[in-house]
Every structure is written in structure tokens, then in C-alpha cells.
């Protein structure tokens, strides 16, 4: 187990180089630079522009800029935002809980709906229920997030008025940020109305972001269940006289979850990229939204640092999922 963790950790070095290089190259490929952004429509006198470029260190050759960036990162310094002048790591830390809250509920939604749907489709394969689950999940998988999010807003917020259009909580509530997780903070403040407001703001983004993982999980659960239901131990479990429900949940599903967990791990990366879109559409104050603003402002440190931190988190989550895979699979745990 520990050798396995070490082997995975060794992969971090090439991944780090790849991610920093890619983030650096991509942001510099976009036309324009931060100074141009600051000067706006009216333009700026060339002398001032040169001075600012020099101040930001942007007048040096690109390889030198990259080298100096990496050297700072290795010292734990991600730099400061060019627009707010706050430390990148600090800004990320403030905004990240909002993204985690959204991603967590999206994944929870995907699991709570997707796993039972996949089980039902497998147990009732080739029936209307199976076709319904497979059809809906195919549609969900093919739906672009921004389109799906807009449909949800148009229907539930605009048409029915059930849910708020955007944001994390209604403006009238002022909840002290203790954990950064709005649902927890409102409860800690003992403000139930604020909690309800936060919850209602969470619903549509959760659905918008959770739909693709839901579709993937439902399909994966179905195919894993179909495989497991053919196994000898399922027949043997039935031969013991166990109830149908117990055979399906305790024996078949327990085994089918092993491949599903891997899929869930792979979804986390997709979930964070989906969160960028979702946050932008719902004005959700998380790191995705922040990153998009960073790109628009050509705020190089924000974009590079944000991408690096998100990549690190995806790697860490995948590592945790791999370990979890060992925990839920006795054949690996007890080698």
C-alpha cells in the first residue's frame, strides 16, 4: 500500500512541470496583457506602459519569466493578483469553500440519484424502467452545462419562481464566514432563514453540475451490476434464501461499487472544470468564477496559480480515491 502511494507521489513532479508549463503557455497565448487591460478603451502613453510592464516583470523573455515563476512557486509563493493585489493563495483559500460546497452537493446528488437508477436499470434490464434510465442519462450526458443551466434557470427561477437565479445567498443575510461553507456557517450563526436561502441558492447549480456525473454513474452502476448479477456468489446468496433486496443491495451492489468508486474519482476532475462554467452562469462566488475573471483581466498570477492549485487538488483527490479503492476491495486490502 505505501509503495503504491509513493509511486503515485513520484508522478507529481512531471505533472507539476506539465501543469505549470501549460498554464503559463496558454495564458500568454491569449492576445493582450494585463497592462492593456488596465489602460482600457482610452489607451495609455507608451512610457507609462513600458514602466508598468517592467514593474510586472513582463518585459523579460518568456523563458526567464517562466523560470522565475517556477522558482517562486517552489518557495511556496504563488504571487499576488495584478488587479486586487491580494495573495493568490489567500484569494483561492477564501473562495475555494464555495466551490467545494457546490461540487460536494453535485456529487452527492449524482450518487444519490445515479446509483439507485443504475441498480434499477440493471435489475429490470430491457424493461421500460431500464430504457428510461438509459435514455435520460444519455440525454443528460450530452447536454452542455451552460445550456442545461440556462434551461433550469428559465424554467424553475423565471417561469415558476421557485429558486433564485444566482448567487450563494440572498443579499439581506450577513453571515460571518467561519468555515466558508454557507450551509454550515448559517447553521452556526443559528439563522434558519439564511440557511433556507443558502439551500435554495444551491439547488439549481447542484443539478446543473451534477447531471453529467449522474449520467456517468448511472451507466457505470448499471453495467457493473449486470456483470456482478451473473456471478456465482449472487446465485449462492440466493440459494441461502436471502431476500431479493438483500441479495441485490448487500451482495451485488457492494461488489458493483468497486468499479463505480473509480469512476467517481475520475469525475472529480470533470466536476471542477464543470464548476467553472456553472459558477460563471450562476454567479457563484467560487474559484471557477474567479479564474474566469482572471482570464478576462489577463491576471497572469491568478490564472497560473489557480490552475496549479486546482490541478494539485484533482491529483490529491484521485490519490485518495485510489486508496479508497483498496479499502473497499478486500482482495487488495488483504493482498
Amino acid at each position, binding site marked *: 500500500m505505501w509503495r503504491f502511494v509513493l509511486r503515485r507521489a513520484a508522478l507529481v513532479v512531471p505533472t507539476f512541470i506539465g501543469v505549470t508549463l501549460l498554464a503559463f503557455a496558454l495564458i500568454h497565448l491569449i492576445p493582450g496583457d494585463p497592462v492593456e487591460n488596465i489602460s482600457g478603451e482610452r489607451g495609455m502613453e507608451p512610457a507609462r506602459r513600458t514602466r508598468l510592464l517592467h514593474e510586472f516583470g513582463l518585459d523579460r523573455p518568456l523563458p526567464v519569466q517562466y523560470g522565475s515563476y517556477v522558482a517562486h512557486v517552489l518557495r511556496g509563493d504563488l504571487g499576488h493578483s495584478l488587479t486586487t493585489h491580494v495573495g493568490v493563495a489567500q484569494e483561492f483559500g477564501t473562495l475555494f469553500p464555495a466551490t467545494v460546497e457546490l461540487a460536494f452537493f453535485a456529487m452527492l446528488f449524482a450518487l444519490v440519484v445515479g446509483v439507485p437508477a443504475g441498480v434499477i436499470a440493471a435489475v429490470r434490464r430491457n424493461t421500460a424502467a431500464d430504457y428510461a434510465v438509459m435514455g435520460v442519462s444519455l440525454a443528460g450526458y450530452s447536454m452542455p452545462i451552460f445550456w442545461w443551466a440556462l434551461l433550469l434557470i428559465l424554467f424553475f427561477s423565471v417561469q415558476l419562481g421557485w429558486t433564485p437565479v444566482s448567487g450563494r445567498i440572498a443579499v439581506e443575510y450577513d453571515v460571518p464566514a467561519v468555515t466558508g461553507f454557507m450551509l454550515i456557517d448559517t447553521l452556526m450563526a443559528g439563522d434558519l432563514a439564511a440557511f433556507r436561502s443558502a439551500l435554495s441558492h444551491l439547488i439549481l447549480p447542484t443539478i446543473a453540475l451534477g447531471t453529467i456525473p449522474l449520467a456517468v454513474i448511472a451507466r457505470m452502476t448499471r453495467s457493473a451490476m449486470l456483470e456482478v448479477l451473473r456471478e456465482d456468489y449472487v446465485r449462492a446468496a440466493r*440459494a441461502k434464501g436471502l431476500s431479493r433486496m438483500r441479495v441485490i443491495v448487500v451482495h451485488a451492489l*457492494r461488489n458493483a461499487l468497486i468499479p463505480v468508486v473509480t469512476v467517481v474519482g475520475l469525475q472529480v476532475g470533470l466536476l471542477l472544470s464543470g464548476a467553472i462554467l456553472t459558477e460563471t452562469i450562476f454567479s457563484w462566488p467560487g474559484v471557477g468564477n474567479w479564474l474566469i475573471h482572471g482570464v478576462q483581466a489577463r491576471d497572469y498570477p491568478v490564472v497560473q496559480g489557480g490552475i496549479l492549485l486546482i490541478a494539485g487538488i484533482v491529483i490529491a483527490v484521485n490519490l485518495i480515491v485510489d486508496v479508497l479503492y483498496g479499502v473497499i476491495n478486500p482482495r487488495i486490502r488483504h493482498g
Partner: protein
Amino acid sequence: MALVEIRGLHVDFGSPARPLPAVDGVDLDIGAGEIVGLVGESGSGKSMTGLALMGLVDAPGRVRAERVAFDDQDLLALSMRERAKLAGGRIAMIFQDPQASLDPCYTVGFQLDEAIRLHGSAAERANPTARRERAVSLLREVDIPDPPQRLHAYPHQLSGGMAQRVMIAIAVAGRPRLLIADEPTTALDVTVQAQVLALLARLRREHDMAMLLITHDLPVVAETADRVVVMYAGQVMETGDVPAIFEAPGHPYTQALLDSIPEHNEGRARLRTIAGVVPGIDDRPTGCLLAPRCERAEPICSSERPLLRGGGAHRAVRCHFPLLKP
């Protein structure tokens, strides 16, 4: 009164309009405490017969019969729920691949406990400590060394022989009157095979438990069973008491099975087995099922299906030209 009485058992696949019979009108009696060997090549419908008796045939398979009775109770009249209650309790079944038959995610103790909780005595069902004691004593009963330790083992940590002993312990947890053993030793090493068979023979003595021993291994039947039922392509070809059938087979198919046993064959130049394989369920001859493979086939064999004709008490043969006149 037989413990098990099966008349005209069919298991069909294919469409209702054109059924493909995996089991095609099987009659089978098992007396209390009796060991009946069900033999035949792979694909003969032996497992389907056992599964039908357990009520475990899955769609698209369809089971019908004139009568399936257990302990004088008409199983066909029971609801699915009542039928499921019998399974694992008074009728238990073990399978060919013991390691694959244990759920890899749970310990031996957990899987034993499931059976005890369902089919154990009232005291055991109510009390976890009593269940644990019963689990330990069951493992001891099937000769597993160091039972308390083994309760914590996962299936992949067991050898094939150990896994089959655990399966047997699970099967006898409900003190069954009938144990259906579907090729219980086929996947095991030769030395382990003998131990597991000896264990089964001992358990049936101690529990006065009847057994349907499904196998394609005739020597196993010769050693263990009281009576033999020879199946081929979904039908019973011959049935009779063990010594009688082994001394004088009545059906050319039984003869061919006996001839393919090495020890039975000593002195002959080479193994004499019948050429070909069991026809698939969608490819059954209209005449005698064996006709295409039978050395002794006459024209009538290809045109007319022989009936299962009985002579004395336990002997019946399905052949136009039996080796032994009934």
C-alpha cells in the same frame, strides 16, 4: 414416501412458440437420507434440474412440471416468497466453483452468520453470541482448523477445498433435509476431492440428510451414491441402483460413460469414448437423442424417440435396444 418427487420437469428456453428444452420431462425421486447421483456429460441439463428444484432458474428460463413435491408439500403451489424460505433452509445447494460462490467482499463469518440468522434455531436468530458459537461449531463440523480465526478470513484467503468446506457449513446451517451438490468437487485437486466427498458422506450420515449429487464423474457416484440417474440432452436415459448399474449398464450411453473411466478400462488398448458432444438445446434430434452418436443405432433410432421403460423396482432404461433386457 419419497422426500422429493419430481414428475415431468421441463426447463425451457427460446420463445414460447418454439421452446428449447434444457430439461425435457425429467422424473426424479429422492428418498429420505438417500444419495442420488445425477450424471451425464456437460450440457445434459443436470444443473438446470438442480436449480429448478431450488426455484433458482432465472429468466429467460421457464420451469413447468406435473409435480414437484418436497416432503409431501407441493412446491409448485407455493408463492415465490414461501419457496425462497425453503431454499437455504430445508433444501440447500452447493456449487461447482466454491471460491467464486463466496462473496469476495465479506468475511467467512459474515456469510455464515447470514445463513444462521435466517435458518438457525430461535435462540440463534435472536442472539449474536449464540450465532457466533454456532458458526464456530459449523466450521469445526466441516473440519476447518482454527475456526474462530477463520471467521475473519476473506474468501480469497481460502484454498478451494477450504472454500468448499465453508460453503458446506453455510449449506448445513439450516439443518437441511436435502442437499443439492452441483459438481462439488470438480474444481478441486484430486486429494481434496476425496476429503470433501468423505465429508459430505459423513454429514449425510450424521444429519440423515438426502443428497442429489450432480457430477460427470462416475467413480465419485460409484463410491458415494445409492442410486444413479443418467441424463443426456435434457432427458433421463437410465436409472437404477448403484451396484447394479455399474455391473450391468442397460443403456449404451451409460456403457460409454463407464468405458471412459480409466480404471474401468484396464487392459484395453485405448479409451473407448463416444465421439461428439451433447447436442445443444436448439439442435435436438427427433428420434433417440443419442442416435447420432450411438454405435448401435438402427434406422428406428433416428425416427422414433424411445420411452423410459422400467423393469424391477429401481431400474429404467430409455433405449430401443437396451444392453440388458428389463
